């Protein structure tokens, strides 16, 4: 199969959906000629023109609000939010407006929009350009949240997001834009709420999202050398969440670590861990561990920043402890 970058995969998904559905359009800062700072959208304005690939001023609440309105009245906007950290600026439009229209109208209004943005630290971009804020939006009923972990997922999930009749937030890992993965030429969609078992194993389940899937896979390689067989699962969407696949795995392995790049406290890892505790308690041989980003603003200095995110070594170390029984009575 051919290999393309995550950036190309997103670009292809958007181009295909824009060809298929004339109501799909893109709205955001420097999306047209510049094709975004990450160059993900390069070439789209040439094909679709400036009426469908629209450059906006730096007015995030304004253009996200406009996307909500356009979506409520018959369009399918894809909003480009240059950095995930700017989600804070658009929270009202996203959480009070987009997320609630369908419910408040008794099911009469829909908001079929996509907000595509990014996450991820270790780019030396400091505290306001490095956050992974998926937990914030996952907390709000009415929003769906997708976290692609490779080019393959990025394309399939984006196409599904655009066709979904709900507001969907997609976070891409900005360090992965140039990473290649096999992506079929033929059209495909990845349904929401279907996890992907990336690697099978009997001893421990590593549930990882987005950027952390690679970390978990590397940890699994380390562990395999020591005779510990880790199963690696990528939920792909955290809302909706494929509980069944996660629970089936944990019932088999009896141990789990949940890894996500958002802050650990009150985060995605906490939610998934507590669902496993609630629904697989009698199958567990050890407490489910959470591994998120350290609960600090992301520091600029490389010497500090690298300490704040889970690494394959740290995941392997925790897995070892869980498997040896060391953490059964963890303090």
């Amino acid at each position, binding site marked *: 199969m051919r290999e393309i970058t995550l950036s190309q995969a997103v670009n292809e998904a958007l181009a295909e959906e824009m060809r298929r559905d004339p109501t799909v359009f893109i709205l955001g800062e420097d999306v047209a000629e*510049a094709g975004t700072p990450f160059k993900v959208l390069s070439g789209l304005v040439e094909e679709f023109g400036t009426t469908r690939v629209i*450059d906006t001023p*730096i*007015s995030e609440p304004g253009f996200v609000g406009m996307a909500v309105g356009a979506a409520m009245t018959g369009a399918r906007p894809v909003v480009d939010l240059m950095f995930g950290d*700017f989600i804070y600026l658009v929270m009202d439009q996203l959480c009070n407006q987009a997320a609630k229209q369908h419910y408040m109208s008794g099911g009469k209004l829909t908001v079929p929009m996509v907000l595509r943005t990014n996450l991820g630290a270790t780019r030396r971009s400091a*505290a*306001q350009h490095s956050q992974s804020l998926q937990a914030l939006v996952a907390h709000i009923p009415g929003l769906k949240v997708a976290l692609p972990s490779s080019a393959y997922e990025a394309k399939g999930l984006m196409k599904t997001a655009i066709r979904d009749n709900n507001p969907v937030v997609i976070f891409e890992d900005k360090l992965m834009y140039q990473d290649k993965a096999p992506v079929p030429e033929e059209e495909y969609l990845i349904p929401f709420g279907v996890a992907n078992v990336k690697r099978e194993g009997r001893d421990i389940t590593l549930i990882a999202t987005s950027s952390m899937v690679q970390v978990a896979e590397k940890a699994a390689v380390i562990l395999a050398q020591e005779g510990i067989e880790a199963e690696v699962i990528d939920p792909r969407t955290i809302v909706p969440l494929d509980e069944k696949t996660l629970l089936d795995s944990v019932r088999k392995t009896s141990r789990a670590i949940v890894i996500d790049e958002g802050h650990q406290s009150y985060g995605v890892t906490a939610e998934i861990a507590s669902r496993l505790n609630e629904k697989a308690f009698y199958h567990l041989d050890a407490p489910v561990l959470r591994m998120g980003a*350290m609960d*600090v603003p992301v520091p600029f200095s490389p010497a*500090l920043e690298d300490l704040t995110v889970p690494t394959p070594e740290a995941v392997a170390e925790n897995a070892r402890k869980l498997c040896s029984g060391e953490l059964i009575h963890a303090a």
Partner: protein
Amino acid sequence: MAKPKTNTEDYLRMYRQMVRIRTFEDNANQLYLSAKMPGLTHMYSGEEAVAVGICEALTDDDRITSTHRGHGHCVAKGAEFKAMFCELLGKAEGYCRGKGGSMHIADQSHGNLGANAIVGGSMGIATGSALRAKLQGKDDVTVCFFGDGATAQGLWYEVMNMAALWNLPVIYACENNGYSEYTKTEEIAAGSIMARAEAFGIESHQVDGQDVLAVNELTQKLVARARKGEGPFFMELMTYRYHGHHVGDINREYYRSKDEEKDWKENRDPIIRFRAFLVSEGIASEEEIEAMNAEIEKDAAEAVAYAEKAPYPPAEEVDMHVYAD
């Protein structure tokens, strides 16, 4: 050039500060190009007269808020090279102990409340600082620096309204360098930017941001009036950034022509213009100016060398400063 003043020392300091900014940026760019600087940074080169003209009209008690393009503001408000380069390299002796980096560089000892990586993110902070001055009966003034692109942020209109209602001692200084990232200002700003401030009853001025004396004279007047409770004010400073949006923005002809860049650099450079003025007015000789330039270059080179060798913060600092004691 605006009318000369009598104080030659002020003039020489303004020249010196502009050259210090340009030299700082040249070194920072070099650090990026030689892969010694983590991350990206936004160069202030070309806009020196704005930061210097304004900050030379302020005291250390006066505050500024800065932007992602903030090295110029930081130098102009009195910061030292060593601690600045250390910050850019993420070292423990940096102004923010390496935690902030280029986009969050701050220097409280001279009233710089910090750079901000959120466009327009400091508009509330600056106006709040002015509110505090008024509530506490202090006569300090806060200058809020931001770009033309930032005028698209709704926050500005909210805080301008309150600043005008309450006569707050804040000066909104819009550095209009013609571009917001890779987009021309006229494509992102409808109508007139000045008229937006005027709509709130805020006295507004447009000034040549490449003329340090013009900027300085206007700022002195506005600061004096703001201290007496006649604020807020708005200044639109017409200027130009020489580099790309950030140091990695190298191939930029798709949005900005080389001829345009050349014209600004050769015909409107704030440092070249002011140097010619200093010489023609007999304030400094060519030799004195060359000596000053050389000294600044040496300072910068030493500071860079120092910062390169300086230690990173120790690991235990990673979760320090999340909460104040």
